[in-house]
């Protein structure tokens, strides 16, 4: 970018006033929540690169409704972590202009369903800017969206909107399921020269892992799924908020004699066909689990890809355990909607286990 030089010199000028020292976190492993890991990733990215700017509603003094941006305005000033007017299209639209000038904006959409006003900017501009300008204007932009249910949120606070973004070429769509990934994947998202929709499973914000953030975790690049549990009977393919549910289901399945493999996709776009197909070739059976609605949902794409690529290794049709095809239910009824351990085990039970005897498959 032509602005790179002036950007660097301007950055030097802006050091100093307004920056306050925050107490350093003690070195060494400590229990860390996903919200803290994301906060730390933002802070480290902002400290390393003064073109990183955070924008959103209530991200300043309040530190965000989930406290994910806590302390960033105090540390970096209002120009770096900015409370915007309450208008999502305006937030993403202005962030697009900032990215055109060579900055690396990180936009917070307060909740999944409140990101929809920004959809036109995302689809018609952010996702295609590189393409329409033949690579002249990349969009190094991260759009953080807390998503999914299970927190007792009232209407419009629990959507799983990933399929909309997955259907838009030009976007990366990623979602961490572990605290370490939340840190590492957000750092990768901010460093990416392509726009990244970074979906944060809000019911995992308070999940904890013991991490040493003085030596930040390194994570796999986008497009690599992770095997979170080894198993030979069948593969549960999942991501984000459904990972802990699948791990619990896999534990419970041992009582039935099944050893379930659990695959965490991590990034929905780009999609890791290789790891998914390798898993299905090993186990011959697969269940896709996600909160989003099933019809034309991510599971439909995943099942189709598996069928196209490893049909002859399948012992049973790929099944899906997803949210129902209904508007996200009110909080007092959401437990019936969300994929749970029992529903996952029921699906596993329907994977035509008798066929292993008729076709000589190995248990």
């Amino acid at each position, binding site marked *: 970018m032509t602005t790179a030089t*002036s950007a660097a010199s301007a950055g030097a000028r802006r050091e100093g006033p307004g920056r306050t020292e925050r107490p350093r976190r003690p070195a060494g492993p400590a229990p860390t929540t996903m919200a803290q890991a994301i906060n730390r990733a933002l802070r480290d990215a902002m400290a390393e690169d003064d073109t990183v700017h955070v924008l959103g509603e209530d991200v300043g003094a309040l530190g965000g409704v989930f406290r994910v941006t806590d302390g960033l305005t105090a540390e970096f000033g209002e120009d770096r972590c900015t409370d915007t007017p309450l*208008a999502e299209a305006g937030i993403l*639209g202005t962030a697009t202009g900032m990215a055109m*000038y060579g900055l690396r904006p990180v936009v917070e959409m307060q909740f999944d369903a409140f990101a929809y006003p920004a959809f036109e900017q995302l689809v*018609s501009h952010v996702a295609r800017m590189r393409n*329409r300008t033949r690579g002249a204007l990349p969009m190094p932009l991260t759009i953080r969206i807390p998503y999914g249910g299970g927190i007792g949120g009232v209407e419009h606070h629990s959507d799983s909107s990933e399929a909309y973004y997955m259907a838009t070429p030009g976007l*990366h769509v990623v979602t961490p399921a572990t605290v370490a990934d939340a840190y590492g994947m957000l750092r990768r998202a901010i460093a990416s020269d*392509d726009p990244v929709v970074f979906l944060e499973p809000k019911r995992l914000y308070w999940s904890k892992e013991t991490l040493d953030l003085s030596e930040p975790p390194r994570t796999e690049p986008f497009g690599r799924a992770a095997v979170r549990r080894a198993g030979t009977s069948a593969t549960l393919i999942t991501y984000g908020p459904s990972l802990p549910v699948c791990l619990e289901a896999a534990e419970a399945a041992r009582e039935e004699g099944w050893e379930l493999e659990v695959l965490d996709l991590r990034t929905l776009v780009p999609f890791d066909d290789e790891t998914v197909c390798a898993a299905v070739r090993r186990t011959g059976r697969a269940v896709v689990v996600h909160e989003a609605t099933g019809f034309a949902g991510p599971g439909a794409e995943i099942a189709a890809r598996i069928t196209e690529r490893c049909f002859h290794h399948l012992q049973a049709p790929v099944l899906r355990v997803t949210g129902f095809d209904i508007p996200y239910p009110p909080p007092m009824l959401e437990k019936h909607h969300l994929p749970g351990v029992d529903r996952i085990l029921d699906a596993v039970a329907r994977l035509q286990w008798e066929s292993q005897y008729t076709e000589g498959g190995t248990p």
Partner: protein
Amino acid sequence: MTVLEQTPGRDDSGARPTPTAAWRPRTDPAALLPDETPFRLLGTSARLDKERKELWRELYRRLVHGRRYNQQATALTKQGRLAVYPSSTGQEACEVAAALALSEQDWLFPSYRDTLAAVARGLDPVQALTLLRGDWHTGYDPRETRVAPLSTPLATQLPHAVGLAHAARLRGDDVVALAMVGDGGTSEGDFHEALNFAAVWKAPVVFLVQNNGFAISVPLAKQTAAPSIAHKAVGYGMPGRLVDGNDAPAVHQVLAEAVERARSGGGPTLVEALTYRVEAHTNADDATRYRSDDEVAPWREHDPVRVLERELRQRRLLTDAEAEEAAADAERMAARLRDRMNAEPLLDPRDLFAHVYAEPTTQLREQDAMLRAELAAEDEPGEPGAAGHDHQHDQQHEREHQHEHQHQDQERAA
């Protein structure tokens, strides 16, 4: 302004004033209101120094050029060389003045009807017309002339202008963004959000609304009940200016003042230019279905090229020879544009995968390979006229590039 004169009220007990009694407007709305009549310079006794005389003459040459560009582009649709052309005929004063009001380092954010403004700013006309020819979307490198990609979704480019100008200011750079939109576009939410963000951030932005009377077929009365579009500025806390959009010197002066205001930290301005879309929405539109010739006729009289030419001649600032030279220069531009647009555009289907991501995904590589295999199959010997396609293609590519560069150099020299 009685509200401004209110003093905090006290009740009889002498207790603390009520919060609402202490209310005042945060800014004086009167200072933001547009004038009651559109600002004009043509037909007034405005005195011109040497610099302004030269500016008016320059505006005239640019207007003649712009009119010829519009005519040529429209003709190219009839010859099938452009997929579509939304003409700015009758609006050349706004298009040209917008480009001329900006300095080298500033940015222009045009809509799809503003290719003339982009060309006037220095963008190669063939590149400006790429979108409308259909060989790529916008294609050109916006950083070279600081012309943002032409925006087809209405008003969505306005928040980009705000963000870019805001970013530049945060970096300490002297950059103003001028964003163009039509009267129809002011109904979009992005118009509102852009103006609101710009005012709150005091971003160095100028919003130019060309009120040309129509959003395709829908007249302004069905678009807004506001006293004027310029009045909307008051709601955002920025000044609104109203200008005769067919008076090129007036448009230039109002925009130049707004640009200077933005540059010096004064924040954004909303400018409404009253003009008229003399042609149909595009070559594919039929304007007779929604307006009569009687309505168009007075606007043909109040034509931006004609009124400026008349004034220049009255003021003895334009000779017959100069007018002929301007027309001849425009004719040469049109001929060059015609020649270049008559050359087949270079199409490479393999480009489809080139700029989706910085690095193509595995899936895109697979699809790219599939397309390459299809193209190779088409080139198999036996397919009519296809042998050696790739080699020829590459040579043509090379020639085309040289050709383009030569033309660009000529245009710039001219």
